[in-house]
């Protein structure tokens, strides 16, 4: 946003004011998340910067909250649970979601709008309602407070993301490629794994990542459907915040922020690669 030479003083003042406003808003977006990172190294059990921290005295910093996090049995179990449930739910949503997206992107698909509406409904219905419904349903079939129950619930919540991203990838898909493969004698399965799959893989992976992060971050359904055995990281943070709030939460939060940065990078790279492969300009 370089300033043109014909700007009057008023224009210039407005130009700078606008920039200041924008950076204040970006500050509002980022500061709360970033401020937790230094605070998680606090040597004292406070949620504020101590005098030692502000003067950069090494005594003011410690790794005790990270140690707390890694040594506590309940936190460790929550890490295992989060990954177990997240990965299992992602496999279900990625498989079912990709198949459905392949079907939905065919021009012969009947009742496309209605089916799409049903398939993405888990994304639209407020989580409290999904959680309440699943709580009643899983309780009635003895799946409440089991791993299978939480996994199935999270798989349902994750599928819309897979369906949407894979369908989007298939929009630019050149169907003459599969016809060519069939013409050359490849079976439908072979065509899928050799031709279609490699081309839509970025879409599948980013959809799967969305599904994983949905499960990894999900708390409302866990609150209702999971028991003590199935507590995930967000569930453990929830009790941490409600019951005895300690800076351990900040250590966990810092680690989660790093994980999300990593996932964000992967998704962004995949998106660019996908667009390059399909001959679209990277945007």
């Amino acid at each position, binding site marked *: 946003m370089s300033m043109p030479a014909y700007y009057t003083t008023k224009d210039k003042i407005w130009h700078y004011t606008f920039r200041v406003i924008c950076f204040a808003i970006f500050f509002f977006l980022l500061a709360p998340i970033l*401020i937790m990172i230094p605070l998680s190294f606090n040597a004292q059990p406070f*949620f*504020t910067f101590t005098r030692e921290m502000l003067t950069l005295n090494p005594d003011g910093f410690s790794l005790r909250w990270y140690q707390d996090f890694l040594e506590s049995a309940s936190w460790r179990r929550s890490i295992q649970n989060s990954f177990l449930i997240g990965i299992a739910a992602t496999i279900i949503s990625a498989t079912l979601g990709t198949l459905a997206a392949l079907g939905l992107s065919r021009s*012969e698909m009947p009742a496309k709008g209605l089916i799409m509406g049903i*398939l993405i409904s888990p994304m639209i219905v407020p989580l409290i309602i999904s959680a309440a419904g699943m709580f009643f349903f899983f309780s009635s079939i003895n799946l409440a407070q089991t791993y299978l129950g939480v996994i*199935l619930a999270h798989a349902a919540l994750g599928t819309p993301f897979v369906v949407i991203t894979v369908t989007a990838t298939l929009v630019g898909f050149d169907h003459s490629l599969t016809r060519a493969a069939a013409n050359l004698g490849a079976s439908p399965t072979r065509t899928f794994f050799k031709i279609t799959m490699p081309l839509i893989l970025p879409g599948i992976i980013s959809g799967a990542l969305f599904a994983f992060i949905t499960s990894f971050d999900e708390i409302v359904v866990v609150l209702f459907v999971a028991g003590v055995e199935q507590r995930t990281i967000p569930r453990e943070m929830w009790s941490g915040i*409600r019951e005895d709030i300690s800076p351990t939460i900040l250590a966990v939060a810092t680690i989660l*922020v790093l994980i999300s940065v990593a996932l964000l990078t992967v998704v962004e790279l995949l998106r660019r690669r996908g667009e390059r492969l399909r001959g679209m300009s990277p945007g």
Partner: protein
Amino acid sequence: MAQADATMMGGAGASSGTEKLVTAEGVPLKRALERAQRRRKLMAFALVVPLLAFILTVFVFPIAQMMWLSVKNDQIVNAIPRTLEELRDWDGRELPDEAVFAALHADLMEDLERPRREQATGPMGIRLNYELSAARSAVSRTARAASGFEAPYKEAFIDAHRLWGDPELWRIIKREGRPLTASYYVAALDRQYDEDGRIVQRDENRRIYVSLFGRTLMLSVIITGMTFLLGFPIAFYMSILPMRHANLLMICVLLPFWTSLLVRTSAWIVLLQQQGVINTGLVTLGIIDDENRLSMIYNMTGTIIAMTHILLPFMVLPLYSVMRTIPPSYMRAAKSLGATPWTAFRRVYFPQTLPGIGAGGVLVFIISIGYYITPALVGGQSGRMISNEIARHIQQSLNWGLAAALGTMLLVGVLALYWLYNRLVGADSLKLG
């Protein structure tokens, strides 16, 4: 191939004559094409079926079942069918006569003979308790003592629990002795039945839900407005920057979007609480006294600030994608035709951003209206929303019918809004980061 060629020739000859086009197998071409088309349709559908079945079972059916709970009312019908039969002609004024009490005794005796898990008086007591407190203990105490009762039963029942002498209890039994009820919705709208069975408003101090729905709507409007006020400038700023810089700033928007919800909520607890970063900073700087620390959290302010932060990306992303497509030449043209910058913005630029504003606004509004976690953690009393009340009825007060009624009302509202959103922008344009 030769065979096919022959058929083709035959077909060509037929087109001039009366014979129909046929394939190599001798099937009429039209039918063969139709069959192939049907097979392709089935193939496409078969790919969708697994997910469709999964979502219908694990997601749609449970929600339908929950909605059913909001009208399901078989507890009393199951427990005391004979009594209800006797009550049919009762006028609802004086206490019912001896025949009704005798029927109730017979019903209770029959229930006692059932295995403990199938006894129907327990659920009936719970059901009656939603309408009249102490009804549960009246039912359970009487059910335990019923085997020792002797005629006249009327006195025996009233001796066992005074509530049986209250016509109000009998009116409730008669009213709710039907397999379906509207009473959960009546309660969810802060109304109740009066003595003549008419629906009237509850006492002033017992009205909760209508004002809670009102507050939920108001908070959602405020949060949507705040995300618009904060999101519009930065989306505009990113849209006029070169792509490279804009992508860098986009990461600042996406990082919060991808960060765990609980991390973001706890960040605001850390910042806003009485001993938190902002208050301590203000005290250190001498702006406020140590005794007068600001209470910015565990109230409505906390909910608004935290949710605005959490939902801001949902406003910025659609706004930005719309603003990117607006050619800058329009503004320049307006200015060269003599418009002031403000007029050019208001008359030319702003109307073109309306699709983005509509999409982002409805999206943020839909999400915030059903939000649970953040209000529960930072909302305190004044920042509670309708979803917190639903959760309370499921987990603590165990009034599932009322929870289901409130949930159904919320769901209908959200689906109506989503329908609107779809009309505005189309679900296909839903973008994810």
